[in-house]
């Protein structure tokens, strides 16, 4: 019984760790609007100015992770700001 309990707890802990790793980005709830402006510009700028595929991939992955974080954690105006600012920079290329 004890063994079974240990296995179950270990499985739950590992699943929880995996899920947390996927989420990754945490948005500051006090300053999300400014963060939306700053991060969208910074990350989209990195995407468009990448000089190799590897550089581009890393930047695009981070931009997508922030987009998901703003959508799932904050939403509303800040999420829209993030999208608008990102699109404005991405459309320069």
């Amino acid at each position, binding site marked *: 019984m004890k063994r079974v309990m240990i296995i179950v707890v270990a499985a739950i802990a590992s699943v929880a760790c995996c899920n947390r790793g996927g989420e990754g980005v945490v948005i500051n709830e006090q300053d999300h609007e400014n963060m939306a402006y700053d991060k969208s510009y910074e990350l989209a700028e990195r*995407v468009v100015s990448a000089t190799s*595929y590897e550089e*581009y991939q890393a930047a*695009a992955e981070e*931009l997508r992770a922030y*987009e998901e974080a703003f959508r799932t954690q904050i939403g509303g105006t800040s999420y*829209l700001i993030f*999208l608008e600012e990102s*699109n404005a920079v991405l459309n320069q*290329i």
Partner: protein
Amino acid sequence: MKKSRKSRFMLACGYVAFVVLLLLGTRCESRVHITTPERDAKHIAEMAELAHSEAELKAVEKMRANYEQAYRKSYGGAKALYFRSLVDPILDAAGDRREVYAAEEAYLAAQQGAFSDKLRDMDKAWTMELGSDADVVATIERNDATIEAKNAELATLIAENEQLAVDIIEAGYPEDMLNKIGELEAKIESKREEIADVEYANEIVRLAYRLQRGEELVIVEPEAEIEVVEEVM
């Protein structure tokens, strides 16, 4: 034996209690606590004011329906109608904001679409095998020729469609001709999509060139022969 009976009895009691609690829980959940029509209408007005999306507005409308039903059950139709007369103007005013919510949601969806489309295009462009400059130019020119040919086909189909529309009016809308115009319209739509696909392919090639080579692709058109007409004095 005695112990077994007791434990069975306890188990049965447990099941009964569980079912009773389950039923009570469902009942409590769906129950609306009505007070007075004025107070309830005020509560709904507050909820309607807080609604900022289509889904929230629908939830308020459902709440209105539940209250109205509760008034109908408890006090009869007159009180339910009175409650409705208080609430309807509030919900009508909130309903006017529906178009705004729909427009906001459509704008957000467009921004999301633009964001993912742009990154998808960039993914494609970065992973595209470009080849030499001559290969790139050849691809673009081949695509341009395809677009030109398909545009000519489209123009023919459109002219055919316009002529058929005139013929249909003159013939008094016969069914076979109406079916034919339907087929033609589908062909026009599919031709437009084919053209858009080739144009998109060209866009991706140009984007790939910009990203991988770090400069804009410029195709120099061959100079057209200039005919010199000598002026005769």
